[in-house]
């Protein structure tokens, strides 16, 4: 652990900074515990209020919300069979049956401890990997950046829910949404129909609020009649014993590594990490039949991995300027709003921010453990607040958040428009994650490509002749071709069996 990180860790204990961490974790856990509200929504809504804050405290608050929101989701997943955040989806499979069997405290206790340990292990990766990776990334030229952004888009399109083509469509729609406004090179206005309101294009915050808050609220209103099955019972026995901990050591370490790795991959968040970790835990278990019936291993695998993705996803964000998840896309926006340049130069130009984010992630993890163990009983009651009263207040906050960007109603209409369009796109199976990643990365990809082409006198060849850039292109192609290969492989297998059967007979 080097000097700046130790300094940043000590700084998180200063009363004001610690206060922001505690506030972020409390709000994150609370929102995470309420089904229908997500951490992304909370962070997008909080962004406009951070205008008035010091950059370090702003990022500290947002990162703490991220940690809290991912953890809070396990409460409703366990007590309502309804994940408070998407990342807790696999926790429902074992958390709810265990709670229903009369052990809700134990189920939540296992989840909280697993979340904490997953966060700790992945934080070590974050602290150890980030500085050297940033040093390496400083050497990237424009073509490397461009091909890396392309790879990130293809990757997120591939792993998003639904078909690859719809993931790609989402990514390209997001990229197109970033195009209106003044052209960065020539200064001419494009795709704005000559409107003065569109000179700056669609501003980041109204778009994020529309995509994450308004569209989610519309979805919640459509499904407002949904009632969850509730578990009644005392939340006692929430502490994990040493024997339990020993039994789960391998599971925790394995799930932490899976979660961290999935988090590091651009654009993939807690949900995929939890699914893969849970699946691996079940596959290597001596009793796979117990999974889904209230198995402790299942809760631990899911919760360890989804929390590990948080720190994993921060690695590409602060070292490369590539969001590791959709929430990180909002954090990327937060850095831009505070006039900070995300990417490797963050460690050079604003080390207090880069190390501040790393330090906040650790301190927030400790605060999360204390808060979740102490306040779960109260959070459990908040889950039952009627949505009919909650959603309109959030909409009013959205209005204020969008309006605060530039004191103009145009941004409010942009927010509402993006919310409705994103919801309608979701009906056609277009996922949100690639859309947002495309939206935030398109300006980076465009400026890097154009800068690169100026250096190469208009030649695209360096994309394929520079080794690192070629590596990213090859990975992107492999990701694109994988579904075709898998389809061919799956189609060829029954044929072989058929041939064998025919030969046998």
């Amino acid at each position: 652990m080097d000097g700046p990180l130790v300094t940043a860790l000590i700084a998180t204990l200063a009363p004001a900074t610690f206060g922001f961490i505690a506030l972020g974790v409390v709000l994150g856990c609370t929102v995470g515990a309420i089904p229908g509200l997500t951490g992304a929504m909370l962070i997008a809504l909080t962004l406009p209020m951070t205008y008035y804050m010091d950059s370090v405290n702003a990022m500290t608050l947002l990162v703490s919300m991220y940690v809290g929101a991912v953890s809070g989701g396990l409460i409703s997943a366990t007590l309502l069979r309804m994940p408070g955040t998407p990342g807790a989806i696999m926790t429902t499979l074992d958390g709810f049956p265990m709670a229903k069997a009369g052990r809700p405290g134990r189920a939540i206790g296992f989840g909280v401890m697993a979340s904490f340990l997953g966060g700790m292990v992945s934080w070590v990766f974050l602290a150890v990997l980030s500085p050297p990776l940033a040093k390496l990334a400083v050497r990237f030229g424009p073509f490397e950046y461009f091909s890396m952004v392309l790879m990130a888009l293809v990757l997120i399109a591939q792993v998003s829910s639904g078909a690859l083509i719809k993931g790609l469509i989402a990514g390209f729609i997001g990229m197109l949404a970033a195009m209106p406004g003044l052209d960065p090179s020539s200064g001419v206005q494009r795709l704005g129909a000559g409107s003065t309101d569109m000179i700056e294009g669609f501003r980041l915050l109204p778009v994020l609020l529309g995509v994450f808050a308004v569209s989610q609220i519309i979805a919640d209103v459509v499904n407002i009649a949904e009632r969850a099955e509730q578990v009644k019972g005392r939340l006692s026995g929430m502490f994990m014993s040493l024997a339990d901990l020993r039994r789960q050591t391998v599971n925790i370490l394995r799930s932490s590594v899976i979660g961290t790795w999935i988090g590091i991959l651009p654009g993939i968040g807690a949900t995929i990490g939890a699914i893969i970790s849970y699946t691996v835990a079940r596959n290597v278990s001596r009793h796979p039949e117990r999974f889904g019936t209230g198995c402790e291993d299942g809760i631990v695998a899911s919760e360890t991995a989804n929390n590990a993705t948080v720190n994993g996803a921060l690695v590409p964000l602060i070292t490369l300027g590539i969001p590791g998840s959709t929430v990180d896309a909002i954090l990327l926006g937060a850095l831009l709003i505070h006039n900070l340049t995300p990417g490797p130069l963050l460690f050079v130009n604003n080390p207090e921010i880069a190390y501040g984010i790393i330090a906040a992630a650790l301190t927030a993890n400790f605060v999360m453990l204390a808060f979740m163990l102490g306040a779960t009983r109260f959070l459990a009651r908040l889950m039952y607040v009627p949505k009919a009263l909650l959603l309109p207040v959030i909409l009013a906050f959205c209005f204020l958040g969008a309006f605060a960007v530039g004191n103009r109603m145009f941004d409010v209409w942009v927010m509402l428009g993006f919310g409705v369009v994103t919801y309608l796109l979701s009906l056609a199976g277009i996922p949100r994650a690639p859309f947002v990643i495309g939206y935030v990365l398109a300006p980076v990809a465009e400026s890097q490509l154009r800068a690169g082409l100026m250096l190469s006198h208009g030649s695209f060849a360096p994309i394929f002749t520079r080794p690192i850039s070629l590596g990213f292109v090859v990975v992107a192609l492999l990701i694109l071709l994988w579904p075709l290969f898998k389809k061919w492989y799956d189609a060829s297998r029954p044929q072989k069996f058929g041939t064998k059967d025919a030969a046998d007979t």
Partner: protein
Amino acid sequence: MPPIRDGRAPVLPDLILGVGLILVSAWVFWDTRHLPPPVYEPLGAAAIPRGIAALLGGFGGIIAALALAGRSPGALASAGDGDRPVPRPWLAVQTCLIVAAYAAAMHAGLLGFRIATFLFLAVTCMVLSDFRRSYLPAIVVMAIGSSLGLHYVFTQFFVLDLP
């Protein structure tokens, strides 16, 4: 996602999506036709939007063609839909209309933030709670508290010039 029947996916959303993407793509090409050619760098202002639009148009064509053939990429049968309550899309339409009216009233200068927010919260809460009388006291208290509280916080602390 709507359930799939007889092994065929619901194709109308995909058809609308495909046609919509083609139209958006065409609009981008039309809107960028007057952009000046590149002078100091090879690509120019129009190249990237057109490139993205071309890809979107192509994907839109594929999606529309698949939809016409009765196929929807990535469509999955939703398990357990039978247990879930009926979705209420019209409630969402009503909510969107109320939100639009709320924004329009302030945009046009008809109402100030406090009154508009009070009315918006009260009406939306009533609509979403199916006009349950038992909710009324809570709604009134919440609407008054929120509209005054938000106005105070955002004008005094965040120094916003609210409508």
